[in-house]
């Protein structure tokens, strides 16, 4: 079975260690603007949510690429950009419905999470266990979580009537 990233937002403290670790892998510096995992801070809701590519089955980025620069790594299942083939057209960044494929103006290539070849630095760096790298074929947990959050949000804004 392949492994995938699982986020447990309730455990996140917003410390950005994941962004720092990811940027270190990408650039060899501490540069969160080049991180492929981003922590979204919702202050008034006390909610901090790390968010990255969950290697979805549909792989819109891969399908959109006109030069077949994105392929699936057989070992990790990650959708990986081959720099040598990428022409920097950014179609994949538009195609991704999750907003987790980025364009790097320094290299003029697309870049996205490749699961660090099977040992994601973000999961290792997270001090609270909010990012796990677990046995799972897909990121099904994401849909369930979104449903839960949506229900509680609707309840909070309209005393439950909106739901």
């Amino acid at each position, binding site marked *: 079975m392949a492994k995938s990233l699982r986020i447990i937002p309730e455990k996140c403290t917003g410390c950005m*260690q994941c962004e720092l670790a990811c940027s270190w892998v990408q650039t060899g510096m501490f540069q969160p*603007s080049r991180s492929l995992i981003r922590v979204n801070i919702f202050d008034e809701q006390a909610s901090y949510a790390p968010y990255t590519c969950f290697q979805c089955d549909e792989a819109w980025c891969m399908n959109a690429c006109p030069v077949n620069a994105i392929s699936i790594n057989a070992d990790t299942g990650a959708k990986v950009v081959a720099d040598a083939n990428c022409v920097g057209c950014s179609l994949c960044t538009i195609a991704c419905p999750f907003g987790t494929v980025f364009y790097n103006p320094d290299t003029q290539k697309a870049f996205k999470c490749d699961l660090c070849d099977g040992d994601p630095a973000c999961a290792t760096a997270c001090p609270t266990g909010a990012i796990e790298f677990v046995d799972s074929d897909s990121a099904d947990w994401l849909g369930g979580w979104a449903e839960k959050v949506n229900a509680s949000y609707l309840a909070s804004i309209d005393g439950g009537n909106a739901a």
Partner: protein
Amino acid sequence: MSKGGWMGTVLRINLTTGQISKEPLNMKWAKDFIGGRGLGAKYLSEEMDPTIDPLSPDNKMIFATGPMTGTNVSTGARFMVVTKGALTNAITTSNSGGTWGPELKFAGYDMLILEGKAPKPSYISIYNDQVKIHDADHLWGKTVWETDDMIREELGVHDTVVSCIGPAGENLVRFAAIVNDRHRAAGRSGVGAVMGSKNLKAIAVRGTGGVPVANPKKFMGAMWEMKSKLVEHPVTGEGLAAYGTAVLVNIINESGAMPTNNHQYTQMENADNFSGETLTDTRLVANKACFSCTMACGRVSELPGEAQGKFMVTTRPHNWKIAVEGPEYENAWAMGADCGIDDLDALIKASALCNELGMDPISFGATLAAAMELYEKKYITDEQTGMSFEFGNADALIAMTEMTAYREGFGDEIAEGSKRMTEKFEHPEFFMGVRGQEFPAYDARAIQGMGLGYATSNRGACHLKSYTVAPEILGIPEKMDPAATEGKAAITKVFQDATSAVDSAGLCIFLTFGVGLEEMQPQIAAVTGIPYSVPKLLEVGERVWNIERIWNQHAGFTGKDDTLPKRLLETPIPDGPTKGEVNKLGEMLPEYYKLRGWSTDGEPTKEKLDSLGL
């Protein structure tokens, strides 16, 4: 660009002329003072006359990061605001976390130096090398949170981080804070009033660059090693993470060291009402970390439905249905025990109000406590205060939080800080502080070393410059008897020097609960590429301590200011486990001067200064 830690550039903005310039960081000074607090003090010493009025355009403000700021070292988030304090007239070094400091580094700068005074309300935006001064007429009068929202929306740059003043800073409240990330603050000594006096509302920063490390391999090993130690330590791995800083409430109260009713007592009956344990059980919704911190001592609390309507503050639009940060130990104490108040909901609201209005809750709470004692002793009346100032009146606390920030009614007196206020009402003996700055949450009669630390602290009474509570109460690194004076001069000097080094590196002093300079040293050396050893770091710390001391001397302070209020020196604690104690400063101070290599009057000797290269 330097190869590690430092970005190598100082951003200088003259608000009077609108001139924006960039200059190379003085690397000789950077090596001698590292960054943050030390390097800021060096620049201020070189550039500014210490005798000027802190609220005049002649005062400069330095926002200084350290080489560790912006790295993934645990707590690599800190920056210092170095200026002449509006509350103290002494050099001040107010520290803050959050993401503002790292963001300044990512934009390419180690330091931001502000000079002069803007002709009208303004704010600064920094987006990498694009730096602009904007009109802020529409922001003047807005709260910290409103300002944060409005600036981020109007700049339209994702992930912009705002550091700003609230109404308290605009109204020159002597203990106004500068708040970044909505809830993190360079809180003490009135740095917010200095910013307000410059007509500067905010500094918004976004940077997309990176912080390089000189020796990545060595760095990564040492970085992981320290993080593991922090996790394993009972304070940094469990206590702070589980209960926040308010874990100290019960510990300090049970030790008979929690100043109560303006330092009249040292224990409060119902202190557990606002302890970290109670907060966690009843009001906590999340733990919040500053940038890159693996401890996450920040508390986020929410009031349940029935408590939202309590202590209504009618001018606040959000009606308290949102999560807010705090309370922490210090503000829970100052507005709680020191004012005789034990209502947790009142403290959550007052803490959030201080963040929102941009005010230091320690000095505010302690000044209200002094006013409450004036009221108790009938030196001020209902007619003057406009309401009952009885100790324990939570309604008065909430009302005065707002009125102080806006300088309305008696809030105008509180806004001057307790030294000026008690002098005005002719009872300066009720001022509980040093160099014009109010004490934090530890009674110096119950913890002897803290008395020496307060008395000699360059920025006025402060718990963050030599936290000997660690050995004296918590037993870190080794237990010392809090009632004894023996050995306190030596530990105070070492703690002051070590703290100065940590503050200069860009790290958080809370690291020292779990690790020492031994663990930090390899990381600082690897990031900067300079072989700072532990003795070398202590030498930097001593250099920083002395440069601040000399600065204060030029500003008019002398050894005579190294003292404590009469109450702490002469009035024994009336009851509790520390009953009968006074602070025996006289037994410690001469030895401290000697260890510092200063004269018997507390003046740094020429030999000492020469040896430090000052």
